[in-house]
Every structure is written in structure tokens, then in C-alpha cells.
């Protein structure tokens, strides 16, 4: 089985004006969205408390809100999370600093359990979450705490800063590596493609108001790795072909290289997309944002390694002379018997 005919010869670079336009449009939408409505940051970055609760039967959100209002949590945001029995409660940071906020989750669970006349048993540990009923009997809790996350205000700021720094360091590291292994035009081309990918993925999260959490940030960094992987393979071929096709102009060398690696680019995208889809479908709510970022990232990354990275290298004026001085590399690729 083959995905494409034996030898493709698409003129990818001829389309570079149109693809540049498309990329520019996507980038503008992303940047405008980021400036206008910023990101829907999760509590990892904003600080606050998040409690996921599971009931033993479907629960009415309005009722939960009434219970919480009565207990003094009028600023709580209640929403469904997956099934009809599961809810997610978000609390903003308490005014009295992080010590107060850390205790919030516990008081909240007590409030939610009060209507069922149960409270967490001090013996509860291990596999089941057990509660004491009104009569002092022990049974599985009807209101199960699934997870609690609390992030203090200064730690949230710190994570935001660390996240941005991580992105920056990754890009600088890659810039240096590619400049060393290839040439600075390639380094700029690959980093431009990465910035392009990151902006569009983050922009996607901004446009659709999808929560941007710590795992999503990790996925964005993984996208950097993935997209770069794609780009490097194309660059590698360009370098090889510059040495082989001595009489051809740069445009043609790059075009041929993209065509030669096209099947591999698409195949790897397919296998990666297959597993990302598996994550998206079966990974559960917690991992959904992560999988979504990867999905968008793999698509954009594949596109950018063909239509962004290489054209930029061309526009920057790559020529055969740029790749020749590296003698050792040339020997490896010597003509074959």
C-alpha cells in the first residue's frame, strides 16, 4: 500500500505566496484573539481552588448551587464535568491569603456532604472513600471527592513565568543546535516555523476559550519537539540535495527535497494523529486539553514544515556555498558504488 504515487513533484514553493497569506491570516487571528480576550487560564496559572465531585446519582446543578450559596460560597462556579453525576466547582482565591484557601476545599466538601448527612470517616484510606452516616455507620460516601487542586497566588504567577521561560529556552536551545548542525538560515527558518506553530496552537485555545492548563503547556512544548522533528527531516534532505544537484537552482533543490520527504512527513503525521486521537477519545477529561493541543499542533506542525520553514530558508537566501564548508558531513554522503 502506498499513500501517494511513486514520485510526487508538487511545486510547493510556487504556492508560497498563498500559504504565506494563509499563515499570516491564522497568525493575525491568533494574535488578535490573544490580545483581545487573552487565554482562559486554568487555576495552575491564576491560583484558586478546583474541586471535582462525583455523586452516586445524577445531580441537579441548581441544587448544588443553592447548597453552596447557603454555605457562603456565593463566588463558586459550578459546572458539569463529563457525566451527569460529576460536577466541577471552582473557587477564586480567598482574600485571607493562601493558608485560608488551602482549607477551603475541605470546608467545601463538608458543605456538599451535609445534605446527605454524611462526613468523611477518619478511617477512610486505600481503595474506597468512606463516610460516617447520621447514625454513625460507615459506608461508601455518596458524595465522592474525586480531586482537589489548589494553587496559591504567587505560585500561579511563578508557573506563568516559568512556562514562558521554558518556551524561550527551548527555542534558544533549538536555534543553537540547528545553527551548529546546519546553518543559521536553517536555524531561523525552523524557529520561525516553531513560533508560527506555538502562536497558532495557543491562539486556537484563545479563540475557542478552552482552558489553558499546565498539561496544555506541556503539550505545546511537545508540539515544538514534534514540529521541529518534521522540519529537521526536510532540512536534512535539502542539505543532502544541495550537494548532489550541483547545477540546479535553490528553488528546485528545496522543492525536490520537500517532495522526497513528503511521504514520510505525512505518514508520521498519520501515526501520531492516530495515537493523539486515542488519547482524545479514551484519555478522559483531565487529559483532553492536552490531547487537543497536540492534535492542533501536529496538524499545524506538519503544514509548517512544508510551507513555512523551507520557504523562509529560501527567502533568507540560502545557497549551495552555505552548506559546502562542512567537509566531514560531505564525506559521509559521498557517491555510492
Amino acid at each position: 500500500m502506498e499513500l501517494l504515487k511513486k514520485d510526487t513533484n508538487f511545486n510547493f514553493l510556487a504556492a508560497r505566496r498563498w500559504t504565506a497569506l494563509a499563515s499570516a491570516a491564522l497568525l493575525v487571528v491568533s494574535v488578535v484573539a490573544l490580545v483581545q480576550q487573552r487565554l482562559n487560564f486554568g487555576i495552575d496559572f491564576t491560583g484558586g481552588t478546583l474541586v471535582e465531585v462525583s455523586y452516586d446519582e445524577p445531580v441537579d446543578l441548581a441544587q448544588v448551587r443553592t447548597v453552596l450559596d447557603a454555605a457562603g460560597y456565593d463566588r463558586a462556579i459550578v459546572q458539569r464535568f463529563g457525566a451527569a453525576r460529576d460536577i466541577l466547582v471552582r473557587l477564586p482565591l480567598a482574600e485571607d491569603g493562601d493558608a485560608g484557601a488551602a482549607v477551603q476545599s475541605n470546608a467545601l466538601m463538608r458543605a456538599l456532604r451535609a445534605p446527605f448527612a454524611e462526613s468523611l470517616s477518619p478511617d477512610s484510606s486505600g481503595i474506597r472513600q468512606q463516610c460516617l452516616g447520621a447514625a454513625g455507620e460507615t459506608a461508601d460516601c455518596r458524595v465522592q471527592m474525586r480531586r482537589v487542586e489548589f494553587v496559591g497566588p504567587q505560585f500561579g504567577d511563578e508557573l506563568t513565568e516559568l512556562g514562558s521561560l521554558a518556551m524561550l529556552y527551548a527555542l534558544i536551545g533549538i536555534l543553537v543546535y540547528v545553527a551548529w548542525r546546519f546553518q543559521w538560515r536553517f536555524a531561523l527558518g525552523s524557529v520561525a516555523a516553531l513560533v508560527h506553530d506555538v502562536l497558532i496552537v495557543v491562539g486556537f485555545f484563545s479563540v475557542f476559550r478552552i482552558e489553558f492548563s499546565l498539561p496544555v503547556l506541556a503539550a505545546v512544548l511537545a508540539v515544538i519537539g514534534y514540529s521541529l522533528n518534521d522540519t529537521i527531516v526536510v532540512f536534512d534532505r535539502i542539505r543532502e540535495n544541495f550537494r548532489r544537484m550541483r547545477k540546479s537552482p535553490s528553488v528546485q533543490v528545496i522543492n525536490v527535497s520537500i517532495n522526497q520527504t513528503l511521504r514520510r512527513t505525512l505518514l508520521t503525521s498519520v501515526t501520531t494523529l492516530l495515537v493523539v486521537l486515542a488519547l482524545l477519545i479514551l484519555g478522559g477529561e483531565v487529559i483532553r486539553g492536552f490531547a487537543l493541543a497536540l492534535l492542533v499542533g501536529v496538524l499545524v506542525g506538519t503544514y509548517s514544515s512544508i510551507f513555512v520553514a523551507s520557504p523562509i530558508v529560501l527567502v533568507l537566501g540560502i545557497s549551495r556555498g552555505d552548506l559546502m564548508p562542512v567537509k566531514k558531513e560531505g564525506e559521509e554522503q559521498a557517491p555510492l558504488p
Partner: protein
Amino acid sequence: MLNKYPFWKYLLIILVLLPGFLYALPNLFGDDPGVQIRGARGASLGAADLERVEAILADEEISAAAVTLDDSGIKIRLADGDAQLRAREALRRELAERRFSIALTLLPAAPQWLGTLYARPMYLGLDLRGGVHFLMEMDLDAALVDHMQNTAADLRTELRRARVRHKGIRHGQELNLRLRFDDEQRREAAREVLRENFPDLAVGESGGDGDYRLNLTLTDSRRDELGGQYLEQNMAALRNRIDELGVAEPIVQRQGERRIVLQLPGLQDPNRAKEVIGRTATLEMRLVDEDHDPARAAESGAVPAESKLYSFRNGAPILLKDNVIYSGRNMVDAAASLDSLSGGPIVSITLDAAGARKNQQVTGDNIGRRMAVVYIETRSEVQRDADGKIETDADGRPLRETIRDEEVITAPVIRDQLGKRFQIEGLDSVAEARDLALLLRAGALAAPVHIIEERTVGPSMGRQNITQGVRSVVLGFVLVLIFMVLYYRLFGMVANTALFVNLVLIVAVLSLLQATLTLPGVAGIVLTVGMAVDANVLIFERIREEIRNGNSPQASIHLGYDKAFSTIVDANLTTLIAAIVLFNFGTGPIKGFAITLSIGILTSMFTAIVGTRGVVNLVYGGRRVRRLAI
């Protein structure tokens, strides 16, 4: 072009595969319910304890699959959850001493011989097994304010002793002290005192003309030193306190300069942990009442006036005077060392000025008598009736009572008048000295801590995360397998074998390193499955290309692997850069993702390049081949 691997290359592959399968093996066996008994607060358990535990289980007619003793305590493997709960109840009732910490746990069900080879299942993060995670930050400035207050008091004493008159010591805003003098000579005299007794203070001067000043600040090195010391002390205090939470494998770990990570697997109520962390513990020094017989007082219950009955950790009674000489608040430091004269283990204690004054006075009057160190801790505990059932109030909430625990750590004889610094001698071993110093230091938190991050995962959530994680790995894996076979036929099967081996190797490396596997970590494995075939795609596409260029099958295989090699290395190394950056910046779960991604990249390079080549060479190597099934 025969495409034959030398023997050593096959040997290499086998040498990697065999341990790989071996160390991945324990993960197949799952867990048994168990109970773990650890020595609380640094106490270690011995063979006698093991016998006691076995006897208790026998009395209750609970048949345990295995009862073992090792460095981490006694582990009891049980058949089912019911036996587990019964065993815990019985043990909790019988082993009431506070040196036992009893917890429900899951014990790996892998056979013994794997354990002796250090083959253990992967270490699951809290998001997969459930539990409480805290990240705490120490408020160093608050502790340093205290430190400077003590320093100011000491300074006053020393200046008085040296008869240097001053116009007062004041606390500045930036943790500094300001000393004022009438004239130059006094200031110089004070300098001398400072040089001799307070080497940790940086001295600056200002003013003049009737108002001569010295500005004292902590040197940076001392500040860092104190920070490190306080953090260690806090960690020791936390370790002691969480023992009673009944958690099988608590983790207290330093993170950076000011932070402590606390992980309590299996715990469901973060509030209990918060109570325990915020608990106060302290020390008191009292004189021993040697005029009365403690044994008789304990028996009859008739305690002499002005005395109080205490007991040692081993339960032996002792009578102490009511009057407290000084408390742990006056203690600046406690360190274990060896006596320079006798060579025996000692604990050196340093007191602040107020404590030193009191110590000097009392010990001077009581040479030859004994002085006791009492450890005091207040905690709240659930009330239980005689059957071990929890008592509740009208609303069904468990009743709690506040318990004040007091025990005598040691009661040595006073040999000499003591002052600011003194030693506790007569200890049995270096280990005992170390434990005592730790206990003395860890009585109270050295600096206040704030929880800046909390993540609690309930037990059902943990299980669900595991199921979902495993399912997505399996689905992703199967989809890729199908795709590769359809697309590359025989070569696809070879790549699939490599992919499977890669998965086994990732699991083996994770198990061997005991690196924490988190949910994002599982996602990293899934992602690796998708990306690992990339290397094979590169190679196979190259082979097809070479065939199209008119090369022979054998030459095509050779060239395909050869040419794809540098591409694969470049592409993987750049991904590795991103993974390493992630690891360095990441907290908890994100780190898990970076770890599995990095391991996956490295193992996949091996399996996809060396591994598949080995199989391809076995199938096609050393003979004439007309066509390749690619």
C-alpha cells in the same frame, strides 16, 4: 552487500532485551492488599516486633500470605480487602505505642525472586494511585526576625559582660540591628566584642559627633546557612509528625532553597494532614525528683506535691519537678558529635541568652542531680469506643479530643555548671545521639510554612486515570500496528516488533529508575508510540526510494539504513532538547511527561535502528533476494 550482523551485535540486542523484559515483568502481576507497619519518629523495628505482629495475626485468625521485615518496616500481605481492614483494626488495638505507624497499602504481587533482583513495578504518581500532595514554602524572613531578636538579646548580655555602655539596640526594617554609642572608644570596644562573639554579623558604621552607630546585618553566607538549616529542621519535624497519619510511603522532599514537597499516597482527607503539619511540639527541661520512688508513685497513683509523674519512651516511670527550667523556645541548636576527650557520642546544645542565664543558675545549684528533657506534643484525635468504633456527635461528625503527649527523652546527671552551650552525654550509640539531636531540633517547626500548592486525588479518580491511560496506550498502539502492517507489510511487522519492544523497554527503564509515572507521563508514552515509528518510516521510505533508483534489494536495505541514520539522530536530538527543557521547568506531573518522552526517544532510537536492522538482517541477510516485501 550481504547485510549480515556480526555476532556481537546480536549479543548486544539480546543483552538489552533480556533485562528489559525481566525488569518490565513485575508490572504484570498487579497488587495485593496489605498492611504496612513502620517505626514512627525514627524508631526502627526489629525481629521482636515481627514476632509480636505474627502473634496478633494468629490470635485474630487472620491468615497472611506473607509477613516480612525490612528497612522500611513490617509488611503484611493479605488475601483480600476484608482481611486487610480486620488486620489493621487488630494491629491498631494491640500495637498502641506511638512508635508504630500502621497503614493500609498495596504490595506488589510479583514473586519474591524478582524482588531480590531489584525488579519492582513502576512507581505510580499520586494522580494514578490517589493521595495528597502539598508544596510548602518556608517563610524564612519570619524565622530570621526571631533569630535577630535572639541575637539582640545575646548581644546585650555580651556587651554588659564586657562593660561596654551603649545607648540601645534597635531593630531596623531589613532584618538589621542598630547600636548607638556616645563616643568613639565605646564603639571600638563594641566592635571587639562583635568580632569575638558574633562572627556571623556584618558590621557597618555611620553617624558621629556624639551619636556613633554600628549597623549589624547577617552575612549572606550565614543567611543561606540558616535557611538550609531551617529547611532541614522543618523536614525532620514534618517526617515525625506525618507518621501518625497512617500513610504507607510518605515522601518529604526538599525542592529548591525554600520549599518542601510532601506526598501522602492513599490519604483521602487533606485537612487531617494540614492539622498535623500545623501542630505545635515543644521541649521542656525539668529537674528530676530524686527524693521519691517513681515506681511506687506509678503504682499507687500517689504523686508527691510539686512533682509530676512522667514516663520514658520505653514506658519506665520518672518523677519530675513542676518547675520548668527552660523550654525548647530557648534552644538555638542541637548537634550530634563525638566527645573530643572520651570519644563517646554526645549531643551539643546551644541556648539563647535567656535560656543560658536560667541554665547557669539552676545547674550551678544542682550539680550531681539529674535534669530531664521532656518532649511535648499536642494533637487532636478521633474518639473511639471500646470496640474501636468511632464516636460521633448528633450530626454524625466524628468527635475529637485534644491529646497532650509528654514523654521524657533523656534524664542525664548534671556534672558541672552549665551555660549557653552544654552537652548531653551517656548515650549508647552514635545513632542514638543523632536521633536525639534530630528530636530536639525537630520539636517545633523552625520557620512557619505555607501551603502554596495542593493536589488531592481521590481513590476512584486514581483508578479511573489508570484505566483510561492503559486503554489509550492500547488503542493508540493497535491503531499504529494495523497501519504499519497495511503500509509496509513484512517490514511493517518488523517495525511493530520494534515498537512492542520499545514499549517494554520504556516500562523497564521506568521500573528500574523508579521514576514517578504520572497521567501526563502515560500520555508521553502514548505519544512516543506514535513518534517512535517515525524512525522506521524514514528508513523504509529510503529503502523504497533506493529500490526505485534501481538498486538491488540488499543494497537498498543497506543504503536505506545508512542514509536515514543522521536524519534520525538530528530529528530525535532536537525533540530531546524540548523534553529536557520541560523536565527542568516542570513541576510534578509535567516532569513525568518529560521523563517518559525522553526515555521513549532514547529507547526508540535503539529499537528502530539497531533492533529492526537485526531482524531484517536475519530475514534477508546473507542470501540472494529478488524482491522485498515492503
